[in-house]
């Protein structure tokens, strides 16, 4: 039972001693300040309630669930300590899903970060025609519903009558089942994921490019620097700080490919596209007897993995910056 007290506990603010705004207080002022604070807490109330119920409490609860044996149907939750974690870590399928998740990341993230960078540089050039049309076209897949795109892709990649098969036939390739064979399914879904969210990374880079003051370019041009020189000495150094934030955002995104995978391959064929999110889903919702304790333990471990990868990225960036500063 999620008692309201739990929520209150999670979101309660510690009453701090009121700080005097000015050294001398008139008697009416304190009352006014108290009334103002009441209004402030009233304004925060909706966020406290909703955020407490659906974000904070679930975070705490999922850690608790990972320590119990529980099938979700019955009320009895037996405390089993770290047994769920042992079971997850002993499951070869879990490690396989970790490997698949990281492989997916390695396929998707570089393509998105560097491909979008190249495109943003081109689209930012004042000499290129139709830039706003291109921006719209490349961004279009981003706004579409991933779970629906996943279904549509199943048909587009259909080996018998999909358009991709027809194109491959023109080039003399036989019928290829890109999503249906375990050797190609992961790479194919990676490419589709790149296509789907390429536009968002591109918009990030364009926003980064717009932070460079125009007169820098002007000054360099007056000094007689060529396009290559300008790119190397102005554009690149100015964009380096953004590389970290953009790759962290992109990596974070690659960990959450559930919608696409569930609707396109559901982890198959032969578990070849079973990323961790699908693995967790299988134990929590798709099994006849849900193992919620086991699934929660897997989810907590997944959260740790995401943190580790992002932290490693931040650390690597900081170290490389130090090295460059020393050089």
């Amino acid at each position, binding site marked *: 039972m999620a008692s309201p007290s739990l929520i209150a506990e999670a979101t309660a603010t510690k009453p701090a001693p009121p700080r005097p705004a000015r050294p001398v207080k008139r008697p009416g002022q304190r009352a006014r300040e108290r009334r103002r604070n009441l209004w402030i807490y009233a304004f925060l109330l909706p966020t406290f309630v909703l955020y407490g119920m*659906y974000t904070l409490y679930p975070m705490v609860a999922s850690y608790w669930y990972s320590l119990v044996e529980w099938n979700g149907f019955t009320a009895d939750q037996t405390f089993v300590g770290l047994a769920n974690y042992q079971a997850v870590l002993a499951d070869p399928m879990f490690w396989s899903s970790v490997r698949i998740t990281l492989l997916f990341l390695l396929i998707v993230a570089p393509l998105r970060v560097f491909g979008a960078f190249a495109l943003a540089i081109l689209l930012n050039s004042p000499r290129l025609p139709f830039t706003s049309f291109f921006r719209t076209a490349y961004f279009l897949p981003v706004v579409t519903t991933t*779970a629906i795109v996943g279904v549509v892709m199943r048909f587009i990649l259909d080996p018998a009558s999909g358009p991709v098969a027809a194109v491959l036939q023109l080039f003399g390739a036989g019928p290829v089942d890109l999503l249906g064979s375990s050797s190609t399914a992961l790479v194919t879904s990676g490419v589709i994921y790149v296509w789907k969210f390429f536009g968002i990374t591109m918009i990030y880079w364009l926003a980064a490019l717009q932070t460079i003051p125009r007169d820098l370019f002007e000054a360099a041009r007056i000094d007689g620097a060529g396009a290559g020189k300008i790119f190397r000495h102005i554009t690149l150094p100015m964009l380096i700080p953004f590389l970290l934030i953009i790759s962290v955002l992109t990596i974070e995104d690659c960990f959450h490919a559930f919608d696409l995978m569930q609707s396109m391959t559901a982890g198959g064929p032969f578990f070849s596209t079973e990323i961790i999110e699908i693995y967790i889903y299988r134990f929590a919702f798709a099994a006849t007897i849900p193992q919620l304790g086991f699934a929660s333990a897997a989810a907590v471990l997944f959260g740790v993995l995401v943190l580790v990868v992002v932290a490693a990225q931040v650390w690597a960036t900081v170290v490389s910056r130090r090295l460059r500063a020393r050089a």
Partner: protein
Amino acid sequence: MSAVVAGDRRRTIRRRLPWWLLAVVLLALAFVWVFPFIWMLSASLKSSAEIFAGGLGLVPETLQWENYSRAWEDGNFRVYLLNTVIVTVATVVIVVVRCALAGYVLGRYKFPGSRLVIGILVATLFVPTGYTIIPIVKLSLELGLLDQLSGMILALAGGANVASILIYAGYFRGLPQELEEAAIVDGAGFLRTFSRIMLPLSMPVTATVGILTFLFTWNAFFLPLVFSFSNPALRTVSVGMQAFVGENSTDWPGMAAAGVISLLPIVLLFAFMQRYFVEGIAGAVKS
């Protein structure tokens, strides 16, 4: 004189030519980018036989409008679309209101506990959705909200939305102090100052937050999927699509029509509100 101009023009052409070639390459790439949607639109107006014949023709022989009526009535997309509209609009309203209120007090006032509140919000900035779903389902079940659209709406609106709160806070912080002083002189209280002066001024932020929330909610899949497991009448379009294909695996044109019905609203919104989409997303990097 004219010789000089002609030479100038030749030089301009020589300088512009690579850019035009590049534009042609990017144009071809852009076609590949939007092709799945074009294919879907064309498949939604073809007959099954025509699709299964394969080939790359994008123009249907005769327009099969009954695909749409099949998806709309038999495929239940009339219900799914209505659900999606209700859930999305309600979620957007709740999120905008609660983020504006919270952002206003966090951005403009110092009060006991304000630091702690911001700290907690920022700490949860990167919550993996995969594991909060189990407690959310359990909580909703106990509150009797699991088989209700209202439960789905609350769960969607109860997401962290930290970014939206921070965008509002930053915007309100930047408004001049004189506004409040003028309001107090006019005798306006806390609530009236906010609703009459601050809120109308924050329209650009409201547009951005509203649109991003709309996008996120309209495209949501995981939560609606879990909430409609035991009650198909609650399905949104993204969940309905999976069900439709599961039940009519050979009805490609119907599937394509359902896809067009589901994607059209969000694509149209994007077409008309492009600036806010791009600004909202770009804001994530700049901040």
